[in-house]
């Protein structure tokens, strides 16, 4: 009950602090593995999860007013990433892993018979004076790809 109240109160008595500070921004990258052993080299084949499109036409933007599930899910994953950095929970890590695996299975992208596991990491992008810097700030557990999803 207390937990629900804690989640509900910001909605009923909102602070409306939209974009007050432009905080360092997390990016989700993942790597496919052939075993449950973490990659030794950080420069391995880490890929950005669901990179944004190069360009959107005005018509596509209009369409997204009514049908925008991927973008909204990506925004939820950004929230999960921010929660992981502020107050790590298993829930946030599970949500990100689950959705990366679901997308990989849906697109069959880069998954071969040899790839058995997955790991993601969070990169924090921020501006230092006039230059952009990025730091690796989190590594997830290594997750078997065979885990049953609920799709």
């Amino acid at each position, binding site marked *: 009950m207390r937990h629900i109240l804690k989640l509900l109160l910001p*909605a009923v008595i909102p602070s409306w602090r939209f974009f007050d500070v432009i905080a360092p921004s997390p990016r989700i990258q993942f790597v496919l593995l052939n075993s449950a052993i973490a990659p030794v080299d950080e420069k391995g084949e880490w890929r950005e999860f669901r990179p944004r499109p190069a360009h959107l036409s005005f018509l596509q933007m209009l369409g997204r007013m009514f049908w925008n*599930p991927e973008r909204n899910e990506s925004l939820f994953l950004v929230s999960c990433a921010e929660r992981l950095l502020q107050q790590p929970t298993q829930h946030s890590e599970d949500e990100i892993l*689950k959705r990366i695996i679901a997308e990989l299975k849906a697109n069959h992208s880069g998954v071969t018979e040899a790839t058995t596991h997955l790991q993601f990491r969070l990169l924090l992008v921020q501006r230092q004076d006039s230059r952009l810097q990025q730091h690796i700030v989190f590594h997830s557990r290594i997750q078997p790809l065979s885990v049953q999803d609920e799709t």
Partner: protein
Amino acid sequence: MNFDDAVRLTEILLGFAFAQQSIEHFNRFADERRLFIPRFVLAILLMIGFQTTWVAILLFLLGLAMLCRFQGPYNGGSDRMSLLILFCLCLVYIAPTQRWQEMAFGYLALQLVFSYFFAGWVKIINPEWRSGRALCDVFQFSTYPASESLRQWSKSPRVLFVMAWGVMIFELIFPLLLLSHISLIIALIIAAIFHFANACLFGLNRFFWIWIAAYPSILWFQARFIMAG
């Protein structure tokens, strides 16, 4: 706009916003479908005006279940506004007298005004917003731009400076625009265009639909308390 019309219009707009949100989850995970398919059905019932009291209460309970499922809002501010509108609608339905009903609906109208005013206030007290730097950062490295080509906007600091000040001034003067009916109508049109631009540039389509659902409350509030006074 009278009270009954404003509440009815809110139900229709809220129902539409919820139906649109819910459809996006139909081909996702089973546990999400278990929440969003009933939500879609309830949203349609709310739109057609069937047993709105019970439907709104069930939607509110479903909203709480979603908060637990996602350990917070799925889409930040838009989910919070959704719950706030539902909360106020439920209070309107269960309030014992017209006076309490008006207080509940008036609370929604005031929160709508605050949503613009405080968003402007927290920006203008930040030097990075006043210099235009913050909006450059939004386009340069935040996760918000909906496409890579939009990041090019960060190379136009003068344009972004004007845009930042335009947004801050509009948000801060929003409460003053309640003083006349025509200025409020113009303000709501500008605000809707602002949300539409955010939807196009940052993919925040849910904000557009849900904020519009709160507009009838402010139109009623102005007619009831400001113009009548």
